[in-house]
């Protein structure tokens, strides 16, 4: 490493900044790319945990979150730019990186705005106040005569950059609280549709994804997968592999098999050859012959009463209007467009990993346990990848790259999954069954409500446990399988946001046959789909308008406003034969964004459902970037419609058979509805997580519209399975 580079990075205070400032990364293998140079680098209580002043006049923001296409980089830029009254072009962002950014856990649950952006807002407001006070003391000029703009403090003719004012040090003061927040008053950048800076790079082909990292001397790897989840390697003829073009190494640890080659396509071809030669034993355990939802009901469950308010049993039994229904949601997949990828580099006991994982610190801890290395010897840097919508193969591929790098040290090892690996080996969003019962009085008010759900756990994130990582189970070290995971994911939004006379909800958590982990909205997708379908059924039973029926059961004016607006925005549709309108509402997690949606669908003679248009109204409290919020919500609505109409993971006795875009079809252009989203900006309120708010309601609105169009109530997803097109 040259002294110039070391000097350069020292000026920044640490060395982790690499990629964003250095352009397309192409480091020499011998370089060490990071080094924390002071101890309090990641204290969340101090200003410099979140914000650094750079010598060139820019400000560096450190977020512990990763960019997933949700626009967090732009949102944190906006809140910091606002508090520092500094042009967003002068704000640089360092995404999650161990030893550099604060440990913010996972980028998940639509929490990045509520947590990271708010911490950065406070840190930037504290920095502004501190910097102005410093200048005031140094110049002997009263605070009110000073102005901070674009990284410069001025008073009359006097000017000083923030860097000069700090004389090269960083603000390590406590953030404290009760700062004046310009984002609530001035709103020069916050609340504005500031375009994302990364979009220019995306349309030029120069945006850097983890898939695109290039290091000098980098090598490429591929994994050879067993026949099924539980099969083990029986035999492999390794003879002559070394003669294949580009061959560098075959890595074989227990039943974990990988190949390393000079070039990517060479690695692919060698992996095909190894795949042809490998034989596997065991592993024909996937349930076949019975419908999945029947099979799931036969599994052992862990049952818990989640909510119990009032005498629901009597209320239902004695109600003049009674209704019961059961709903099913199959396994669905994240299905990232770009297969999971990571780069790992191992040298002299130290490991570096570049990853699109949603949690760099938890991944580091888990890698330490898997590889039996001290955490301090592992550096994990978050780099944007293809949109993942939850916990996909990101951590798995990082662990695989790390295992290979340890076996093949001193060169960067890049591993990207193939399409069929991404489809067949990622952890899916679990299948769920929801059973509901309700009793209504003569006025159409719900007096009794009973809700039962059957689900696998929804999250199997690493959290230090090697067995959560796919390769761990093939190392023959007896890690076992991860168990059912995060129960809270299954019950998310299982309690309706409505005011009900009495209420009883129970969850039954099973351990299902296939891998699963967090997928956008977790259980809220299926729970809201079921609750909002059932609310629609009840409205018809009670002879009420479905929107009025919901409003009659809501006390929260923000919820009611969303529904009223969506009804207005979607009113006056001229419906043809076999066309209908459907509505739905939920407040994500019952604490985050409010979202109401209307759908206009048409059903053709063959029963194929086509969504023509969707209207959404979202209230996320204070809006940081209205265009970003709209973009996320539009995408969420269409993705949810695709889940509901098209998507279902399938398997036979041995394999996942959904292996590509033909066997797992998702919405393409000609199926896309028009979408219209209205944002309700409430400056006085807290900003609320929004990226998952649309999923459940959008699916239910489509289902309700189908009923409105045809009188057919669909309770099992997907609506348009592949077989329907073959009839």
């Amino acid at each position: 490493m040259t002294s110039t580079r070391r000097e350069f990075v020292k000026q920044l205070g640490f060395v982790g900044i690499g990629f964003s400032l250095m352009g397309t990364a192409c480091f020499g293998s011998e370089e060490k790319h990071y080094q924390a140079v002071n101890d309090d680098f990641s204290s969340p209580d101090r200003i410099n945990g979140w914000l650094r002043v750079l010598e060139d006049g820019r400000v560096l923001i450190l977020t512990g979150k990763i960019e997933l296409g949700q626009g967090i980089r732009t949102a944190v830029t906006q809140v910091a730019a606002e508090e520092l009254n500094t042009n967003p072009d002068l704000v640089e962002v360092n995404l999650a990186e161990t030893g550099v950014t604060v440990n913010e856990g996972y980028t998940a649950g639509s929490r990045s705005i509520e947590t990271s952006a708010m911490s950065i807002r406070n840190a930037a407001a504290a920095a502004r106040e501190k910097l102005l006070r410093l200048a005031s003391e140094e110049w002997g000029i009263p605070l009110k005569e000073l102005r901070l703009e674009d990284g410069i403090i001025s008073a009359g003719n006097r000017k000083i950059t923030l860097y000069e004012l700090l004389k090269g040090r960083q603000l390590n003061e406590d953030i404290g609280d009760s700062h004046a927040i310009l984002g609530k008053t001035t709103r020069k950048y916050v609340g504005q549709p500031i375009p994302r800076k990364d979009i220019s790079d995306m349309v030029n082909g120069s945006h850097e994804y983890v898939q695109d990292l290039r290091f000098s001397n980098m090598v490429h790897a591929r994994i050879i997968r067993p026949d099924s989840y539980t099969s083990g390697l029986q035999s492999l003829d390794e003879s002559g592999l070394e003669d294949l073009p580009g061959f560098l190494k075959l890595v074989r640890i227990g039943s974990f098999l990988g190949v390393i080659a000079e070039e990517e396509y060479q690695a692919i071809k060698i992996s095909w050859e190894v795949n042809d030669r490998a034989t596997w034993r065991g592993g024909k355990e996937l349930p076949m012959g019975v419908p999945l939802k029947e099979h799931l009901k036969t599994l052992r469950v862990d049952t818990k009463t989640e909510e119990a308010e009032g005498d629901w049993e009597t209320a239902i039994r004695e109600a003049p209007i009674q209704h019961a229904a059961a709903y099913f949601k199959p396994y669905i997949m994240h299905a990232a467009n770009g297969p999971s990828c990571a780069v790992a580099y191992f040298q002299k006991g130290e490991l570096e990993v570049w990853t699109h994982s949603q949690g760099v610190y938890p991944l580091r801890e888990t890698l330490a346990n898997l590889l039996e290395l001290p955490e301090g010897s592992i550096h994990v840097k978050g780099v944007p990848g293809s949109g993942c919508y939850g916990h996909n193969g990101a951590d798995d591929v990082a662990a695989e790259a790390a295992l290979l790098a340890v076996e093949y040290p001193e060169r960067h090892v890049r591993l990207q999954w193939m399409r069929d690996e991404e489809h067949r080996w990622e952890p899916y969003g679990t299948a769920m069954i929801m059973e509901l019962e309700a009793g209504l009085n003569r006025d159409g008010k719900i007096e009794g409500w009973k809700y039962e759900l059957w689900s696998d756990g929804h999250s199997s994130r690493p959290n230090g446990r090697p067995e959560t990582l796919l390769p761990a189970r093939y190392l023959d070290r007896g890690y076992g399988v991860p168990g059912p995971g995060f129960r809270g994911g299954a019950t998310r939004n299982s309690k309706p946001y409505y005011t009900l006379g009495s209420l009883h909800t129970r969850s039954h958590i099973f351990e299902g046959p296939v891998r699963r982990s967090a997928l956008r909205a977790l259980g809220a997708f299926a729970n809201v789909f079921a609750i909002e379908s059932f609310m629609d059924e009840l409205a018809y039973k009670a002879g009420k308008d479905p929107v009025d029926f919901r409003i009659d059961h809501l006390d929260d004016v923000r919820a009611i406003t969303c529904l009223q607006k969506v009804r207005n925005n979607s009113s006056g549709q001229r419906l043809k034969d076999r066309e209908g309108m459907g509505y739905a509402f939920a407040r994500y997690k019952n604490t985050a964004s409010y979202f109401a949606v209307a759908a206009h669908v048409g059903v053709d003679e063959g029963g194929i459902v086509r969504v023509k248009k969707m209207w959404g109204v979202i209230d996320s409290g204070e809006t940081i970037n209205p265009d970003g919020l709209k973009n996320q919500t539009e995408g969420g609505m269409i993705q949810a419609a695709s889940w509901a109409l098209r998507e279902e993971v399938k398997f036979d006795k041995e394999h996942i058979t959904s292996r590509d875009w033909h066997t797992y079809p998702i919405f393409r252009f000609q199926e896309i509805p028009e979408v219209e989203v209205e944002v309700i900006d409430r400056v006085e309120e807290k900003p609320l997580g929004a990226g998952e708010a649309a999923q459940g309601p959008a699916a239910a609105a489509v289902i309700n519209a189908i009923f409105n169009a045809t009188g057919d109530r669909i309770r099992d997803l997907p609506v348009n399975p592949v077989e329907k097109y073959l009839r």
Partner: protein
Amino acid sequence: MPNYNLTVNGKAFTVEAAADTPLLWVLRDHLNLVGTKYGCGIGQCGSCTVHVDGEARRSCLTPVASVENVKIITIEGLSEDGSHPVQVAWKKADVPQCGYCQAGQIMTAVSFLKENPTPSNEEIRRAMQGNICRCAAYNRIEKAVAMASEKIT
């Protein structure tokens, strides 16, 4: 391994690769043009779309041996500075979320608009049917293609 003479983004290159190597990997690994993305490798998703003599082509299914003496354009070669009308429209409509598929979307759109500079929305959708966007930024893509068509005509 044989050598192949390629013309990519107006520049001549000689690359040494096995004859069956898909153009996608040659672009990414030999020429460091990583804007073209691997998505499926089997022509189902459109992420790897480039232009071969002006026509949109799936680079994952195009063997390097078949593209000597033709003009290959990748996303990096569409314009010097992101000023192609389709790129400009993309920025204006704030299209991408994660952006991974967007290079392929743009390359498909550019070649389509050359064939049909004044498309209807239905024609845009039909032309773009082969390009998947998992973030579902489809409506904005459609809008950007329509905006660009107005600029081109």
